[in-house]
């Protein structure tokens, strides 16, 4: 069974572009920047607004046929949830790395991620994660000299 649906995902990029355009124009106008600078930014936003309008019209007119079967919906929902979980996990990693330090952050991040992607048993995921973390430490911190945030382990390494 198929049904026609609006492809909302297709509107994300033009929405982001339009939102950024509005922010850019308002910000430069309020800050009373050089007129030529504001005119330049406005001239960049005109094609953005025009193309975003075309995308909106095309999306509304050409609704996509999707399989409405329960199994297909479940698969799509599962894929979307996996993606959101990964983004949440990525956000947690970025948010916590400067607090806990790269060593702990990468070990926990990799271990949980590998387990979530199906690596079993748990100690295999943990061992792999530990090995990868040590490799990162020797390759990037010791050899290349990259000052990754040490966090809680400052003073130990």
């Amino acid at each position: 069974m198929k049904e026609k649906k609006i492809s909302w995902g297709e509107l994300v990029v033009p929405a982001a572009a339009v939102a950024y355009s509005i922010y850019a124009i308002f910000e430069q106008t309020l800050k009373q920047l050089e007129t030529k600078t504001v005119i330049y930014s406005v001239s960049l936003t005109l094609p953005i607004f025009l193309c975003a309008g075309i995308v909106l019209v095309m999306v509304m007119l050409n609704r996509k046929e999707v399989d409405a079967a329960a199994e297909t919906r479940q698969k799509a929902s599962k894929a979307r949830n996996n993606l959101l979980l990964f983004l949440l996990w990525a956000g947690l990693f970025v948010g916590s790395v400067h607090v806990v330090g790269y060593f702990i952050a990468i070990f926990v991040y990799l271990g949980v991620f590998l387990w979530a992607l199906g690596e079993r048993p748990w100690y295999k995921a943990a061992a792999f994660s530990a090995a990868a973390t040590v490799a990162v430490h020797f390759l990037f911190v010791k050899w290349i000299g990259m000052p990754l945030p040490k966090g809680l382990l400052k003073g130990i390494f």
Partner: protein
Amino acid sequence: MESVIFDGLQLMFADIWFVFIGVVVGMIVGATPGLSASNSTAMLLPFILVLPPEKGIIFILGLHCGSQMGNSFPAILLNIPGTPSSAVTTLEGYPLAKQGKASMALGVCVLASAFGALLGGIVSLTLTPFLAEFALRFSPVEITIIILFGIVIIAQISTGAIYKGILSGFFGLLVSTTGADPMWGQYRGTFGSVYLIDGVPIVPSLVGLLAFSELLLQIEEKDTVKESLREKVTLKGILEGFTEVIKRPAEVIRSSVIGIIIGIIPGAGGSVAAPVAYQQSMTFSSREEKEKFGKGSINGLIAADASNNGMVGGSLVPLLTLGIPGCSTGAVLLVALTYHGLVMGPELFSLNGEMVYAVLWSQFLAAFFIALTGVFLAYLAVRVVNVKMSILIPIISVLTYIGAFAQNELVFDMGVMVVMGVLGYFMKKYNYVPLAFLLGLVLGTQFEANLFRGLRMGLGSPIRFFISPVAIVLWMLLILTIVYPFIQKPLTAFIRRSFGRR
């Protein structure tokens, strides 16, 4: 000038190992479904930037050449293209593998790729200096129009509708206005954050748009099952493939030239070169040979691989002379060159001629290493293509975070990388053009600076942008690029009717 050419050759030999390592890494990257030259070089870029510029750039070029060859391995063994540019290889390579000729198919790919890289090297080495000489006459007016032309042509040629490409390109130009403006030094679009005072960081944006976005797509498709052929690869079979290529010189040369020409066109890349060369190969084949297409045609396989590697050489021409990348990996090369303070265009040849010629000469070495190491890696191809995604995805994600951190040593840049990754995900999924966005972001400051310089040259009047002969030609090409998709069908119908009447 001759001394610069030979100095470049000497410099290249001093860095011979970087070509070798680049080619080997490139083959492994290309052979691993989910990795491609562009997202891998984007991921490795922060580490490549630590190297001296000529070593880093030669490494990227070797990686690019190697990946165009390595992407054939999963295409032949798994019916899964390693990168989009090897989608055509699956049409002939997989049927050959099912007939028990996987080794021969791999051998054909190795030698055809090597010849494509060799011919690409010859053309780029001879053509680039002439175009650079011509580009010396460009003032800020012409440079502005060229950048705009580059973005529009990438928008037009890439998959997806032109309006999506133009939106992507202008979005990139607008985001590039973040930070201090190049003429008056006023701060724009910083969201009140000190971390954006120098603009949106380019390397994390590139890593996010090309590499992190790919991870998001892979996670979404994680349950795809691969069926692998467990055939043993033999040296005898690979050498048989070499013989097949040597018996078909016309096919190799034609396909390589097609790849080179398409590589010169900004934005086209391997995903355009291979299908065009494949279609031409079918056209020029005998009736007997035509029937084999789709069922294991050696001609078709040669066309796909020779054109892919010819494209690499062709893409260096617009990149080094005009600063417009021919493909996504070219965009990474552009960022690498810019990071080291090297300005694209004719000045690059006069100020850093040795390094440029070292890069151009390295293609010949890459062709040699493709032929040499391709044989050994083809042996190991079955192992390489079956690396589990459940291990690869987490490792690559950690490399992207570290890569994003490397440029400015700021955790903030990791966040920028994730945001750009999400944007890149939506762009790739819904046929927008991440390369156009990236080009706008990278070249936006240069575009704005040259635009205002051009206006100053004309004392504030934009007339100067429309009176020089080069500018007029570029505007005509730009308008034609935008308008052509809409007039193509009526024009073709009109021509057919006109000739039909006569």
